[in-house]
């Protein structure tokens, strides 16, 4: 049965020469990035070993979380229709088919490691991390993923029945993080005297404390590997036998779990297969699955669909579907991951910029969060409307129908904006007051709408050129829009700041609000132009 599956997979791989080229380019860029870490001579923090280890520890925990999320999400809910037909109905054991599910998350894990590798020069510039140390970190990140990924696939098979059951492992993990964060802050307050003192700590000190934190070392799986990584980085060769012993124990536990468990996940896998087909279809259009709001679980309750008239029926229907799909529909998981990365950049900037120039940190935060929208918001559920005839058939203006579909994503955008606001507030506590904060939330929602409209245009105009063309053009277009929008907004802000601003915080608020105004106007123009994607292009 293994050879039959391998035969099928290899044949599929042979038909994708472009994918092979991308893999080769990816490997070359990853290797050269790691090697180049040694060649970087400019370091922001030379020799701050505690901070460096703290950052690596945080990244290792992130690798743990990411592998857990990917393994749990793909797991038994990742089977395609073909897999359901050929594998579940075929002469394969449930255990073998569960092992097959590893494949669904593997590409995400590989992309994650590629991102880690190509960012090594960035970390080197920040911390002075060399190639050897980078390799040690990557090795441990790989080990953590290798341990957690199959474990979460197993967990996903055990907790496959129903939304509530599936939430249990996720809630346990989230609770562990909150508990860890609470205990870590409590330790810091104990050490530095008060919360006020902790707030004024620079990021390098916080990372240094994190690296030495007993709380982090106690975290399941990731904590133990952090301790071992420290030994390896310090050149203590005792880590080798200990690591080997730990891996043997983890391996034995995994084998035992897989062998002894009676799995019963076929029905859930089958019912999710069609959903996966939708996700793949959305992915072909260059839109990340999570961004389409496609959910794999939904149940009918007492809710009633009774709002909307004409084009606004689309708005209310999307909201209704979102609410039914999940009570936490406004949480964009992809956005959270990328925002966490942005927070890391902000900490770095905060560590370098003098205290009296905190406004620079705020503006860096604003631009960084905007740039990430190129990845986070790519059209949302509206992309899926293009697979159905109703958005084309309903006798309403195309501009209104599109606007109504896009604005249905505002709750998600607002939550994302709130998260971004909190992140900037953490790093730039004093200058990021209420006025710039509210301005920033307005700016983020406006720009999210603009990013989504750009995503739709790219999907509809370039869909035939394939996923990568759509994504590349979308990224470039959004980056170009950021630059284009900055010119008039800077002029507007320059005039207004000179007349109104009485403090740096007010000036920041005016600058951000000016950007929001300009991007909103561009969005209106883009929606008006986008009507042609309904009226002048073949529907399917």
């Amino acid at each position, binding site marked *: 049965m293994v050879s039959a599956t391998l035969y099928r997979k290899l044949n599929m791989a042979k038909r994708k020469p472009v994918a092979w080229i991308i893999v080769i380019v990816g490997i070359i860029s990853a290797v050269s990035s790691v090697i180049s870490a040694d060649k970087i001579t400019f370091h922001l923090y030379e020799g701050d070993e505690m901070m460096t280890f703290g950052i690596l520890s945080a990244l290792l925990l992130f690798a743990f979380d990411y592998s857990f999320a990917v393994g749990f999400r793909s797991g038994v809910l990742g089977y395609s229709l073909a897999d359901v037909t050929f594998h579940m109905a075929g002469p394969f054991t449930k255990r073998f088919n569960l092992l097959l599910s590893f494949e669904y998350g593997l590409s995400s894990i590989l992309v994650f490691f590629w991102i880690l590798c190509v960012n090594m020069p960035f970390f080197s510039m920040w911390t002075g991390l060399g190639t050897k140390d980078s390799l040690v970190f990557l090795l441990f990140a790989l080990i953590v993923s290798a341990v957690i990924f199959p474990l979460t696939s197993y967990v996903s098979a055990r907790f496959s029945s129903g939304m509530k059951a599936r939430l249990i492992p996720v809630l346990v993990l989230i609770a562990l993080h909150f508990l860890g964060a609470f205990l870590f802050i409590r330790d810091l307050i104990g050490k530095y005297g008060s919360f006020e003192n902790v707030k004024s700590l620079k990021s390098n000190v916080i990372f240094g404390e994190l690296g030495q934190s007993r709380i982090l070392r106690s975290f399941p799986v990731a904590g133990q590997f952090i301790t071992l990584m420290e030994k390896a980085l310090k050149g203590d060769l005792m880590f080798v036998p200990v690591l080997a012993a730990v891996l043997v124990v983890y391996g034995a536990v995994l084998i035992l779990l897989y062998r002894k468990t009676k799995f019963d996940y076929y029905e859930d896998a089958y019912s999710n297969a069609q959903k996966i087909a939708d996700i793949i279809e959305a992915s072909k259009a260059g839109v990340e699955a999570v961004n389409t709001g496609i959910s794999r679980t939904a149940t*009918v309750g007492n809710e009633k669909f009774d709002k909307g008239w*004409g*084009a606004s029926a689309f708005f209310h*229907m999307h909201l209704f579907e979102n609410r039914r799909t999940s009570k936490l529909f406004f949480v964009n998981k992809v956005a959270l991951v990328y925002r966490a990365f942005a927070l890391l950049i902000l900490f770095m900037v905060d560590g370098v910029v003098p205290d009296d120039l905190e406004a620079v940190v705020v503006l860096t935060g604003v631009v960084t969060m905007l740039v990430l929208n190129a990845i986070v918001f790519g059209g949302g559920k509206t992309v899926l409307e293009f*697979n159905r005839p109703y958005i084309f058939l309903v*006798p309403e203006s195309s501009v209104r129908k599109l606007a109504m579909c896009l604005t249905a994503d505002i709750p998600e955008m607002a939550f994302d904006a709130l998260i971004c606001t909190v992140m900037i507030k953490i790093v730039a506590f004093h200058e990021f007051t209420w006025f710039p904060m509210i301005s920033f939330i307005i700016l983020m929602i406006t720009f999210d709408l603009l990013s989504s409209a750009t995503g739709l245009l790219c999907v509809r105009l370039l869909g035939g050129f394939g996923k990568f063309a759509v994504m590349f053009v979308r990224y470039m277009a959004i980056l170009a829009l950021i630059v284009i929008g900055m010119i008039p907004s800077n002029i507007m802000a320059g005039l207004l700041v000179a007349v109104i601003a009485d403090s740096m915080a007010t000036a920041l608020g005016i600058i951000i609000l000016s950007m929001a105004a300009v991007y909103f106007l561009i969005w209106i123009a883009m929606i008006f132009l986008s009507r042609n994607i309904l009226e002048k292009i*073949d*529907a399917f």
Partner: protein
Amino acid sequence: MLSVNGVTKKYKNFLANDNLSFTIDNGEIGILLGPNGAGKSTIIKSIAGLLKYSGTIEINGLDNHDMEAKRQLGYIPEIPALYDTLTVEEHLEFIRRAYKVEDISVKEKLLERFELSDKRKKMGKELSKGMQQKVSICCALIHNPSVIIFDEPMVGLDPHAIKELKQVFQELKAEGKSVLISTHMIDTIEDYWDVAHIMMNGKIAATKHNRPGNPEDKSLDELFFEITEGTKA
């Protein structure tokens, strides 16, 4: 009334529809017959305004992209395209609201008519193909269109549902609506049609009017196989 004049549709170098012209009058059922790839779905989608084309398509004298024309058109796609997480009832409510249909009772009437009342709380993804097709038909009829186009409506339906659907065709005809049905299942259309266009390679190869009792007329079967295979049935 549906009027198609000189419609041509090209996909790169492939000519899917080549200068098609036909008319379906009020109270008339038109059939588009043809093998797979003959261009039936392409012209149906063009009429629904889903594709770009050259030529003109009019619904009751209005260009098919006109808002009023869209209001008068009902389209049932070949593959039902329902929303996964909306129930049967919510689908009808959504379409009723999107088309601004004031009469709430029409929803209940359709649910009753298509025996969907007991399935009203089922989500789109939980329905069988036949049930999905029924919901799709209800969505197309809820705004009381005067021109209704069906793309391969019999595929996936059980014999009972096919019988029901034929009854619906007759009712629509009796109400004076123009009905266009695309199909390749020649044995399912029997004698309820008024005009049949046999398509081949994007063109209308023959048109036959249903005039029972004319001994000189070839049967639809004979004509179809003569055109598509070059042989007699």
